[in-house]
């Protein structure tokens, strides 16, 4: 699961997809996850990194990550 090359993310979480012209905003943790995905990290690595840094149960994060990634797919931000 990779973020499209046409997607740019700014430091404050503004997302622009130059292939569609759509723009989005991310909260802090959403921005971190998108960055990790852009760097090619797998689900398990992303989960590991986030639960090391944040106060969250792995099961809850896993559920939130799946939901978040389904939204990325919904918004057409992932490579086919």
């Amino acid at each position, binding site marked *: 699961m990779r973020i499209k090359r046409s997607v740019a993310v700014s430091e404050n979480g503004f*997302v622009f997809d130059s292939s569609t012209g759509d*723009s989005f905003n991310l909260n802090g943790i959403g921005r971190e996850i998108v960055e990790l995905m852009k760097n090619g990290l797998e689900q398990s690595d992303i989960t590991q990194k986030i639960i090391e840094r944040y106060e969250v149960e792995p099961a809850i994060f896993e559920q939130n990550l799946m939901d978040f990634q389904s939204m990325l797919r919904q918004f057409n931000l992932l490579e086919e």
Partner: protein
Amino acid sequence: MAKLAYERPIINRISAGIPDKFGMQSRIRPIPQIEGLSVEELMKKYGSPLFVLSEKTIRDTYRSALKAFETRYPSVQFAWSYKTNYLDSVCRIFHQEGSWAEVVSRFEYEKALSNGVPGNQIIFNGPHKTRDDLEVAIENDSLIHIDHFDELYTLLEIAGKSATKPKVAIRVNMDTGIYPRWERFGFNYENGEAWDALNRIMLSGKLDLVGLHTHIGTYILAPSAYGMAANKLAQLAINLARKYNHHVQYIDMGGGFASKNTLKGAYLPGTDTCPTFDEYADAITSALINSEIEPDHMPTLFLETGRALIDDAGYLLGTVIANKRLPDGRRATVVDAGVNLLFTSFWYDHQVVPAVISSQHTENTTIYGPLCMNIDILRDAVMFPLLRPGERIVIPRVGAYNMTQWLQFITYRPNIVLIDTEQRVHVIREQENQNTFQTSERIPQYLK
């Protein structure tokens, strides 16, 4: 090293070109407490879902309505509209404040009597009164508001055999410049039917015509419509005085004042569009005072306001059961209180807020109730923060009609508690259980 506070990852599309009608997104304001008591604690003790009523709000609202009318008109009498909320405790608060009772069925009539309302302070409205109902009402000297000619003739027949002269008023329907026009109740003003009914009553000599009544509709946002209605009833009163030298004791303007809830499809929120009691009072009392009714014979002004007096006092508390993502990407939140408890969600976009929130990030969310039915939707689309299962929601302004029109469907109906003016909590209607239903069901022998 301490870990950082977690917030779930969120992405929202930025939609340019579709401005919010108010130019900015409103912040979610949680309701953690009701009358100083924690929502969480109330639900821990009394269960979820839970209806909560505030006695202080009921009394404050009633007093502000009374003040709006009493400062403008010499004689005012409110009658509590039982159908809006006929929990005995609620009715008794209104009766303590001085309200009479306005009932529309034998069930409500008996409730009013059992709440200690004297028979001569009960207004009996509605299209369905049996002969027996009428006889009981006459016996108790109640005020019978006649809905149709069949009722009028039944009354004349009873009065012919009775020692007591029934006290009656007629309900009048009319054009007040608003839509929809409620034409199905009472006698029409414009086509002369109302005047015809009044003539029959006066010429019969068997009935004591004490009042004139109208109820122009519900959730009326135009106070001017009440002014027009008061004007037309005043005209009937003047005609009675001229022709029969008979002066009615009261003019009953019914109910129908709006509450601050937002109707589905309304452009602006109800909090912005709902007229104040002063605006309604001004329209009604000006029309009566400026009419040609002689000052010595000004009738008492009766009001049967229900919704506007009780809506703000009621809260429905619930708990999040689950979150889902719908196929089109919308978020859905399922809560344990649905249309079975919140009947008014069929016509209002109820405000639904969390009891506490950890983040101001919101998403367009559909809020579903717990019923296994497609129609069980509390809000189609509302900007709502993500709540986890077990977290609490609060729906304010649910005091009117929900506790009378709620449905016993699939689940038991929950506790209703009243927070009194000293912050004590009283269960005023207990949660239903298996016994509630077993006591009224009968199983034929062969199925046992």
